[in-house]
């Protein structure tokens, strides 16, 4: 076992956790103002595609990043308009957004990127390299991490400060817990909700961008591979708290890293089934939902 739990494993865990943290915090911003967001998965996927396409066509990683954010915003705008203006059920809108993203990203991938590959052009874009922190980057966990990972590690603390120390944070709390009362107190409920949902689109788009611009360098069909749902699980497991959600995301990232490490590598002569490790985040979330880990209380005005 000693050869498995090394610094590199934890470094991989944090890398794997990066998109989960970003998306989970995105989900948090949306759910804390009362808008259920199961469309994270679709926004990550579409963000990943936009990042790849933007970087491929322009040759610039930053254009790719901007494209991912814009696409995340666009999908979030659909969700915001559907839930706030058309008063569509939040779940239905989220399901539609996930389907739309799956269909569109695959369609566009096959229309634009696959023909380029078939013509012999590369579809691989360069990735954001390891960031330098004046020596700090030599610490085991921060070795070879991109700025997006560092951003994801700092963001929970920033969000916590914003949520607990600013007027905006108080308003978020008010809207999420009792939107009627908040409205009577003069809080612009609808504007708060738009902001929360749109910010979740930005963060989910960034999560998608990470997959392409920091992790793999290219888009593949359905490459979000359920990360939006793991992020949702992390959000619940972390009880809608920025540090809790990020911590859960890192824990789930650790399972992924462990699973990658254990592929084909026996522990004490026993081959551990990697499927069971991949299952753990979901299983743990179910256990949390059972109330075995203390009371799970979502924002009380969620979904209205």
């Amino acid at each position, binding site marked *: 076992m000693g050869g498995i739990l090394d610094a590199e494993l934890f470094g991989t865990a944090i890398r794997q956790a990066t998109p989960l943290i970003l998306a989970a915090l995105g989900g948090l911003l949306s759910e804390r103002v009362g808008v259920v967001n199961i469309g994270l998965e679709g926004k990550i996927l579409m963000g990943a595609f936009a990042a790849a396409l933007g970087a491929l066509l322009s040759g610039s990683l930053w254009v790719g990043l901007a494209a991912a954010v814009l696409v995340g915003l666009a999908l979030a705008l659909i969700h915001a308009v559907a839930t706030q203006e058309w008063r569509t059920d939040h779940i239905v809108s989220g399901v*539609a957004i996930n389907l*739309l993203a799956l269909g569109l990203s*695959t369609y566009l991938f096959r229309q634009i990127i696959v023909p380029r590959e078939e013509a012999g052009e590369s579809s691989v874009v360069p990735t954001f390299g390891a960031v330098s922190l004046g020596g700090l980057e030599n610490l085991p966990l921060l070795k070879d991490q991109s700025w997006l990972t560092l951003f994801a590690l700092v963001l929970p603390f920033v969000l916590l400060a914003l949520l607990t120390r600013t007027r905006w944070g108080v308003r978020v709390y008010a809207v999420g817990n009792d939107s009627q009362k908040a409205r009577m107190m003069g809080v612009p409920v609808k504007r708060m909700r738009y902001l929360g949902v749109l910010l979740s689109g930005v963060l989910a788009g960034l999560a998608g961008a990470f997959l392409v611009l920091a992790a793999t360098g290219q888009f593949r069909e359905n490459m979000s591979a359920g990360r939006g749902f793991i992020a949702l699980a992390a959000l619940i497991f972390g009880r809608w708290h920025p540090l809790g959600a990020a911590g859960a995301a890192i824990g789930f990232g650790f399972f992924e890293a462990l699973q990658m490490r254990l592929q084909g590598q026996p522990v004490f002569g026993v081959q551990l089934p990697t499927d069971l490790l991949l299952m753990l985040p979901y299983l743990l979330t179910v256990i949390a939902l059972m109330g075995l880990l203390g009371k799970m209380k979502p924002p009380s005005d969620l979904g209205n």
Partner: protein
Amino acid sequence: MLRTRVAPALLGALMVLTVLGALVLAAGKPLGESFQIILQGATGYPRSEAFGPLDAWDAVLHDLTLLVLTGLAVAVALQAGLFNIGAAGQLLVGALAAAWVGTQTGIPAPVHLPLALAAGAFAGALWAFPPAWLKVRRGAHEVISTIMFNYIALYLTHWLVTERLKDPAGDAPQTAPIAEVARLPMLHEAFLQASWGLAIAVLVALGLWLALYRTVWGYETRATGANRDAADAAGAPTARRMTEAMLLSGALAGLAGAIEVCGVQYRFFEGFPAEYGFDGIAVALLAGNHPALTLVSAYLMSALRSGAYHLHAETGAPKEIAVVVQAVLILYVAAVYLRKRRIEG
């Protein structure tokens, strides 16, 4: 009636055709010819040399069987006010259970097929039970727990089919083929995928229609979905009805998986098509959760899929056109017909 029902429906149809046309044009294919090919895929007409009505109906009726069942699964849960996003996972465990029973020896021939199908339905119901329990007893949102159970099913069945139930006769991650007597016959000798499972699906739809709209149980279930507090106050056993609806929902999704195994695939394998479970959401929403209308909406969805697939085969246009159209349709239906109707959280 004209303003509230007919006009939105026509507008919806127009929008679907517009989106479809835009995607076809964006793929660089001629509009008229493409629509003709899609129609060919959906109905078999106009007949082409390579692709006749039988080919089209084989594809459409196969999808119809699965989509009726998964559509009903989502619909019956929604009737009780529960959103079952877990049909995909329930379909997977149902399929694996049916394949397991189908490969057992020593089961008398006449009961082998019914037993395999029943095992699928039972496994699906079993998979839906924890989310139902969590909802009723713990107040945990069923959407979250069914999503979690989808992934647990995905990894569990993957583990079982690669490690425990793998066909020893080969290296492929799949079960052995099920016994001949455990297979559903095809509807037509020329068919390759449309089995008599369709008859089961249609019977289930009609039975569910009667159960939901002609019995006290159905009335109480629908009342629970419409307004749980009011139903509670009126003395309906709402927790019980919700649990039953969820179990029934899981059973139907599991049955869909079992029919796919016994009717078409004859085994369970890695990458089993679970996405029919998600397509059931669109089918149910489009049908307004009515079992009889589910037959119609499942047919429309099947025709769309088969048409898009045929367009893909003929011209190379991405078949995901169907997925995009389906997404737009869900949003439209939700925005126009499902306004303000809330699913209790």
